[in-house]
């Protein structure tokens, strides 16, 4: 029989520590929607998305109600559009994004991911059309998220696309300057992208996935924070054990919700993503966990070590709690969506360079970083290339989501609103890398990729 303590502990996590299931994301294959006619293709993908995800929101809400735990986001990820839409041979893919936006609104989800291209090695005509369409697609839609896989350990880094994306991101920023360049907050560049990531902006339904699948992202920085408060001043063994135990409980909740939702939707269970995903809400912050570990601000010396401990123990605790773990699985360290990280950046404790080194031990990477609007496109490409190199050389997923907030500079704040929060504009190293970026071509894969 359950003890009083156990029941109270779970409800305290939910009521006071912001424990929730961050997202249930349904992956939907669009491969069977291929058509040479653009309007037929758009009609097919609209029908398929709205038909497959029709009950996603109501089932998510029902399951949440029955367990008494909020399921915050219900989302859809589709086959990368550059693959699904290749048959149209169209020059402009922005209308496809608008169809995705309409479908998202019709089923009541807040984001749809998969306006994406996988170009680690090179671009097809379709990939080029998608990348060309990115600024217009993201500026004219509300809920569409886009991503480009620009590098992998097996293929190296496609520097042609990295160079191009510096300019593309600038263009997105200028097109949405009235909203502090919010289009850039819906676009991410990946190294070692994964096809089962439930988190936006980088979610897409990988080509090796089934027809449709449900992936679940749990969360709970607040729960980990509270657990660590009870271990204040204790040694590292205790610290690690506390994170591990907490991650286990959080993940079991995700697994339960995933199974229940899949059963009701009649869709197979994919993976649980073990990420600690912060939100702008008070007490729902990875930065606060780092502070609780003993850093005065995230970014102080010791931050990389602290984050490494957190990331590793979240995985160790979570792996045993779920039958399939996947996605990104680790700790996210966005600046805009995490109040303590944003505070640290404002206080000058957290620099772009320190963040970059922290991304070598966390999941994802440079996430939701606002930089001055006049940052040169080549510098953006340089920042992206550095992040890609960390992922490629270490055989891990990394990403860059940078927002050069048009018309703003250091000292100001970019405000995106809602889930995306706000971010202080961080200074960027002003020395040029333009000649390096201008070389073009592909950086060959590292020696550790030759494992055959």
């Amino acid at each position: 029989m359950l003890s009083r303590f156990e029941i109270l502990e779970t409800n305290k996590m939910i009521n006071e520590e912001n424990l929730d299931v961050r997202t249930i994301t349904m992956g939907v294959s669009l491969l069977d929607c291929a058509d040479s006619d653009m309007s037929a293709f758009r009609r097919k993908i609209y029908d398929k998305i709205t038909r497959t995800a029709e009950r996603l929101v109501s089932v998510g809400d029902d399951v949440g109600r029955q367990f008494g735990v909020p399921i915050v986001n219900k989302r859809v990820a589709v086959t990368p559009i550059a693959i699904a839409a290749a048959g149209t041979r169209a020059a402009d893919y922005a209308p496809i994004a608008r169809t995705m936006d309409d479908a998202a609104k019709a089923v009541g989800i807040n984001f749809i991911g998969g306006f994406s291209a996988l170009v680690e090695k090179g671009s097809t005509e379709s990939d080029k059309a998608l990348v060309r369409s990115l600024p217009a697609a993201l500026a004219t839609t509300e809920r569409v998220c886009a991503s480009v896989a620009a590098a992998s350990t097996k293929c190296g880094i496609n520097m042609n696309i990295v160079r191009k994306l510096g300019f593309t991101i600038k263009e997105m920023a200028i097109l949405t300057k009235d909203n502090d360049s919010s289009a850039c907050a819906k676009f991410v560049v990946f190294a070692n992208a994964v096809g089962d990531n439930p988190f936006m902006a980088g979610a897409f339904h990988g080509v090796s996935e089934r027809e449709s699948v449900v992936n679940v992202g749990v969360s709970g920085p607040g729960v980990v924070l509270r657990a660590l408060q009870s271990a204040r001043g204790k040694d590292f063994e205790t610290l690690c054990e506390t994170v591990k135990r907490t991650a286990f409980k959080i993940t079991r909740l995700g697994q339960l919700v995933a199974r229940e939702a899949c059963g009701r939707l009649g869709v197979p269970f994919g993976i649980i993503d073990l990420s600690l995903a912060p939100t702008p809400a008070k007490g729902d912050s990875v930065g606060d966990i780092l502070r609780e570990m003993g850093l005065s601000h995230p970014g102080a010396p010791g931050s990389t070590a602290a984050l490494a401990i957190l990331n590793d123990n979240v995985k160790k605790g979570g792996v045993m709690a779920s039958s399939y773990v996947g996605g990104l699985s680790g700790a996210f360290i966005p600046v805009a969506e995490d109040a303590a990280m944003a505070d640290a950046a404002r206080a000058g404790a957290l620099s772009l360079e320190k963040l970059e080194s922290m991304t070598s031990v966390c999941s994802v990477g440079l996430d939701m970083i606002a930089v001055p609007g006049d940052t040169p496109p080549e510098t953006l490409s340089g920042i992206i290339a550095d992040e890609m190199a960390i992922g490629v050389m270490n055989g891990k997923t990394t990403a860059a989501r940078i927002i050069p907030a048009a018309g703003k500079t250091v000292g100001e704040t970019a405000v995106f609103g809602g889930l995306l929060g706000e971010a202080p504009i961080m200074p960027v190293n002003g020395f040029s890398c333009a000649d390096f970026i201008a070389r073009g071509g592909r950086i060959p894969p590292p020696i550790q990729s030759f494992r055959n």
Partner: protein
Amino acid sequence: MKAIITVLGPDKVGIIAAVCVYLSNNGINILDLSQTIVGGFFNMLMIADFTHSPLGFDEAAAGLARLGREIGLEIKLQREDIFNSMHRI
């Protein structure tokens, strides 16, 4: 199906009676009950069996929430699975 009922709010006469009458009228069996007062706050946990109740989960949850509003406390119904999965291997 088993579910956990939690009741939380300022103490007053007749809380347990009101909840039990509701459960009894709806064919819900109480398997375990524990109650305490902390700083004037009434705090009760019940494990209840819904197997023979004509009410669906959502109906019962809404009914208990409504009862809670009437008597000025928060009454929450949750499926037992969430606690088992978080605290049992």
